[in-house]
């Protein structure tokens, strides 16, 4: 269900790395650190992965945890206390992709005269919390989280009138250059909610839409309020830059001007006929398409390839007359740069890293594995909603544990396709199978205040299974190469 392909291969890889370290007499953490792909390093297909690679930090954090540093002493203590049980601690660390290599997204951000913010997205909410992430992300530009988020919306985007080729993965450079001349052409129009892209792709496009509303709506409204009166009012004394704008407690301020709440800004923006809604499209092929648009009040350059806006209720007749496309003023981009088509050959452009350390206790008589304790460390850039990031790691831990120890679906005849399989035969972990009271999820802080949110929802299930397998090997000296590792298999291996 999560990270399919990566889950299987990285489980095998991390078990083999662990075995190699053991055979060579090397420390499991040091051995991995000596073989890491480092920042700026190239993947197998020759490209550099985006941003900083933080696997080394993840390993260092894992290695610092008492469950790891104290494992030898704990094993000795337990061997004396319960000789019929075998205690083992295992570690695994992986990095894996988020994104598919062709990720488009729409977003619409609107503010009412009363200052209520609404975000509309095609992203589908299945419980991952993309609704909350979208609401939170626009606070960067608008001061407060959105009041309303509409998810899974398929209608209304025809305002942008986009056209795209049938297969975004096989466009030639010439086709892209030709297509770019049409202001409605994009490499791909819409995408499933998939590949852990909600935080990185969908909220980024919402951020762009909110940025347009800030730049062409809230900011000029603020300037108008601050410079009211003779000779430029109280704003005259300072040189005002959008880059200096900050939100304090949801109020917009800059250069010492009195902080203005969103309802006041929104009312002013509507009254002045400024931009109060922005509909945008973004496209990512391991890099963002970016374009420039000439609005009546200035040029906007951003990580989007299509833009339409609405002006406030008080817009002049001339400005109202511009909103000719479904109630929006739609712009033709004056220039656009799409990511190179050769990026289609890249396997992976974005990655995030996570590792787990798991302590198991095996009953030597029955072969049953109890997971006593565990820690997962991950890095996700900026966590928009920390509780949701940790929630993914907690759910991912359960899935990894099920994959390693419980879940089995036979292939072909007699397998789940015959309609007789249910939760009585397919064993998923219950709370009593997991260290529910003790699971430590440790999220590394971002590198800086402008880190982007990275995808992690699939990643966090992947190091768990190999960590468990490595813990079993540590406990009883046996390695297994087929899953699930059931009590029967362990019992057989011990006799």
């Amino acid at each position, binding site marked *: 269900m999560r990270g399919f392909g990566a889950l299987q291969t990285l489980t095998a890889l991390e078990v083999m790395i662990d075995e190699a370290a053991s055979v060579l007499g090397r420390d499991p953490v040091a051995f991995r650190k000596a073989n890491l792909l480092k920042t700026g390093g190239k993947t197998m297909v020759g490209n550099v992965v985006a941003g900083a690679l933080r696997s080394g930090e993840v390993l260092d954090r894992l290695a610092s945890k008492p469950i790891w540093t104290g494992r030898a002493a704990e094993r000795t203590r337990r061997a004396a206390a319960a000789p019929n049980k075998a205690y083992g601690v295992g570690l695994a660390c992986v990095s894996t992709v988020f994104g598919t290599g062709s990720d488009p997204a729409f977003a619409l951000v609107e503010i009412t005269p009363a200052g209520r913010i609404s975000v509309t997205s095609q992203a589908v909410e299945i419980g991952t919390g993309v609704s909350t992430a979208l609401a939170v992300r626009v606070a960067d530009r608008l001061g407060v989280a959105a009041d309303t988020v509409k998810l899974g919306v398929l209608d209304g985007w025809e305002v942008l009138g986009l056209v795209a080729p049938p297969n975004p993965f096989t466009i030639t450079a010439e086709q892209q250059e030709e297509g770019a001349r049409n202001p409605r052409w994009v490499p791909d129009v819409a995408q499933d909610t998939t590949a852990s892209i909600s935080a990185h792709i969908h909220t980024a496009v919402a951020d762009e839409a909110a940025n347009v509303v800030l730049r062409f709506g809230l900011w000029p409204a603020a300037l108008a309020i601050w410079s009211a009166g003779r000779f430029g009012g109280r704003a005259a004394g300072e040189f005002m830059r959008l880059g200096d704008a900050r939100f304090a407690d949801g109020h917009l301020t800059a250069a010492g001007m009195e902080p203005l709440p969103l309802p006041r800004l929104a009312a002013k923006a509507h009254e002045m006929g400024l931009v109060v809604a922005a509909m945008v499209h973004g496209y990512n092929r391991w890099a963002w398409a970016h374009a420039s648009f000439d609005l009546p009040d200035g040029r906007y350059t951003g990580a989007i390839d299509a833009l339409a806006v609405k002006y406030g209720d008080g817009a002049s007749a001339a400005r109202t007359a511009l909103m000719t496309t479904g109630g929006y003023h739609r712009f033709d981009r004056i220039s656009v740069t799409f990511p190179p088509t050769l990026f289609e050959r890249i396997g992976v452009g974005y990655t995030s890293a996570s590792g787990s350390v798991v302590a198991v206790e095996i009953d030597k008589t029955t072969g049953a594995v109890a997971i006593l304790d565990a820690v997962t460390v991950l890095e996700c850039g900026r966590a928009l909603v920390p509780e*949701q990031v940790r929630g993914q790691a907690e*759910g991912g831990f359960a899935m990894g544990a099920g994959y390693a120890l419980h879940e089995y679906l036979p292939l072909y005849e007699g397998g789940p396709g015959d309609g007789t399989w249910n939760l*009585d035969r397919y064993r998923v*972990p219950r709370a009593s199978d997991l260290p529910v009271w003790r699971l430590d999820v440790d999220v590394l802080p971002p590198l800086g205040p402008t880190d982007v949110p990275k995808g992690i929802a699939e990643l966090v299930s992947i190091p768990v299974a190999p960590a468990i397998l490595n813990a079993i090997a540590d406990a009883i000296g046996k390695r297994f190469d087929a899953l699930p590792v059931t009590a029967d298999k362990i019992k057989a291996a011990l006799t």
Partner: protein
Amino acid sequence: MKTMSISMTVNGAGVGPHEVPEGLSMNDYLREYLGLTGTKFGCGIGMCSACVVILDNAEGTSSTVHTCINGADFFAGKSVRTVEGIARDGRLTPVQSAFLDHFAFQCGYCTPGFVNAAQVLIESLAREPAPKAEVDARILAAMDGHICRCTGYVRYYAALRELILADPNLTR
């Protein structure tokens, strides 16, 4: 098709009589006849507990009962609470607030079952407080029958532990 007549008390109000097919499950009765779709259908074989409702006994105790494997006739004449009936006058219970505050659920499909079972646990502790040292075991005993695939259970359990330990009426 043979039919049977069903009436009962649901969330404090009398419902029925309804003439329903013999053998109709309680899950179908709630969802199809009463429009109470808060009670979910999960595995259908009594394993996941997403489908449980609260059965209130005459002597003042309550228990959760699966609606997927029990007929509507099992509940005939009895008093039942569904997840829709947990909040009073729009005010969430401490269990519901705790689950929200802790981001305890994700997709929400198992949540009505968790809410009902947790509510029964809290009410039983209010009648007979447990020693603080037994709280974790009491939570596990009450909730381990509930399967969740999204959350790994961590926040559901943490929410209940915090709720119970913070209320002096529930422990001793």
